[in-house]
């Protein structure tokens, strides 16, 4: 068995990035993701990459934009209020089809909120957040191991599609320390290890025609054309990149749908519910976008009802309801503002649901 190390979630992301060949990182301090920025400062120096503590989140994401167009693997990280500021750059990257990884270690909001882990940025992450008709792949790790693994996957997917990828985690998973395997050992068959083409990068036009990277498309129909091109790419992501973790599904009557830290709490709930004779299973979306619509649809045919749990007042629950199209009851249990969902309150809710006719 491969030896594990004990690592903080935030640092696991940093190690995943370094091992994925990320050689340009730009950050700006904000709790609860600061360990990641500090980790990158140290490791980038060791691997002779570029590390800059930018003057703002806006500058940091625009540095990611600049680094990305030279063809280097690049990343930035922040927490909720800082991610709001980064939306400008993310939209520009999506338009220019530039790869890059954006990490959001969510904290309580709205506004400056608090520094506790929360899940209030689901809408922002999965609906784009910035302006325009674009999508980003959103991956939701729920352990230190996945902080590492999904960071590695983020760089793969960003390159594969030349699109920004968001790693959406939260203060609890970010701060939590857990054992982790240090090498990315993936059985994911969907990953193409294809090296991305270089016919789009800017590195000086020696021996070729000059190129431009831009998103201002003023000619009639030009922008629509780009949007359709992007749309085809997003469709392909929806077909190929859905990832989901199923747990105790086989005999389940009630399905909990949860991601990230809520899924961790959900697992404890299920362990205890099963001891009490409640047949509960879990669907844990690993990709929040593309959302596992078909998986949920299929499982809906075999179960009585659903309970979505989130550390928010209900955001992903809307996607679950859309997927189920009214065919099953979808209940919700959530807490906003960085307060932690209690196992007991969810158990109570489960009992209440199982007693419903």
């Amino acid at each position, binding site marked *: 068995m491969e030896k594990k190390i004990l690592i903080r979630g935030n640092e696991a992301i940093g190690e995943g990035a370094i091992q994925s060949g990320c050689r340009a990182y730009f950050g700006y301090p904000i709790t609860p993701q600061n360990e990641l920025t500090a980790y990158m400062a140290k490791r980038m120096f060791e691997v002779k990459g570029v590390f800059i503590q930018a003057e703002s989140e806006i500058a940091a994401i625009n540095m990611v934009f*600049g680094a990305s167009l030279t063809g280097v693997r690049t990343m930035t990280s922040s927490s909720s209020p800082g991610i709001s500021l980064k939306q400008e750059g993310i939209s520009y990257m999506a338009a220019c089809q530039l790869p890059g990884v954006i990490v959001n270690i969510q904290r309580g909001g709205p506004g400056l909120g608090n520094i506790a882990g929360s899940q209030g940025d689901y809408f922002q992450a999965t609906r784009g957040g910035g302006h325009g008709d674009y999508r980003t792949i959103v991956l939701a790790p729920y352990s230190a191991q996945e902080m590492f693994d999904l960071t590695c996957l983020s760089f793969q997917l960003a390159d594969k599609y030349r699109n920004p990828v968001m790693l959406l985690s939260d203060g609890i998973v970010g701060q939590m320390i857990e054992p982790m395997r240090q090498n990315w050992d993936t059985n994911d068959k969907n990953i193409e290890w294809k090296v991305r083409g270089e016919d789009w990068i800017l590195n000086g036009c020696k021996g070729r025609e000059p190129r431009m990277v831009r998103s201002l498309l003023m000619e009639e129909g030009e922008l629509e054309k780009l949007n359709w091109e992007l749309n085809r790419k997003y469709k392909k992501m929806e077909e190929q990149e859905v990832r989901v973790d199923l747990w105790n599904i086989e005999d389940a009557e009630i399905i909990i749908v949860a991601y990230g830290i809520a899924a961790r709490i959900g697992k404890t709930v299920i362990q205890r519910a099963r001891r009490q004779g409640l047949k509960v299973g879990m669907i844990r979306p690993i990709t929040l976008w593309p959302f596992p619509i078909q998986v949920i649809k299929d499982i809906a045919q075999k179960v009585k009802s659903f309970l979505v749990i989130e550390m928010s007042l209900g955001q992903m629950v809307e996607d679950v309801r859309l997927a189920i199209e009214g065919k099953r009851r979808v209940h919700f249990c959530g807490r906003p503002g960085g307060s932690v969902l209690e196992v007991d309150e969810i158990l109570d809710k489960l009992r209440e649901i199982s007693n419903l006719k």
Partner: protein
Amino acid sequence: MKKVFSYPESLKKTKFSYCPGCGHGISQRLVAEVIDEFKIREKTIGIAPVGCAVFAYNYWNFDVTEAAHGRPPAVATAIKRVLPDRIVFTYQGDGDLASIGAAEILHAANRGENITVIFVNNAIYGMTGGQMAPTTLLGQKTWTTPWGRKAELSGYPMKISEALGQLDGVHYIERVAVNNPENVLKAKKAIKKAFKNQIANKGFSLVEVLSMCPVGWAVTSVEALQWIEEKLIPVYPLGVIKDKSKST
């Protein structure tokens, strides 16, 4: 016969989309000429701003990207850090550099990034129809200062080059104008120096170019040349603002 003044290789044959008498065409030609003269066309990456000059990506005959409003120094920083042997420059207007991107330029300068910045100051927002810029003169009428800029309401014309000159990270800043042939030649010399500094790894160099916007100022093209001389230069005096290689 020998061509003595000819179209630079670093400029595509595309027609400019700028208004008649606009100074951007002159500034962008000067940049292209300097790049030709240093033979760095194939290793140059230019960054166009938001504003009229965004279309520079259509005109320059080398790799060009466009940055979000005010962010060219951040984009340039990253490109130069990742590719330190390439020549990286930003071309920014007064709104882009001195207003929305004030933080980015200040910090790129303070870090002493080894990049070149061409800062075109025409004291107005051209592309959006002629609103007040940070560099708009007191009393100057614009779309958003219909009775002239008042200090009590909108502060003073921003001397950002002087402000940047205070930073230790800055190697060279000079203010030039393109309102007569002599000034154009001086402008070219300054731009050349700013690129030469980068080639010699000397650090952050910025050239502020006072430039005509006849449409934004509501004057004729020829009057715009005079306007620079009579109105703009007294507030923004020409000359070297900082040069580390001279002070040591």
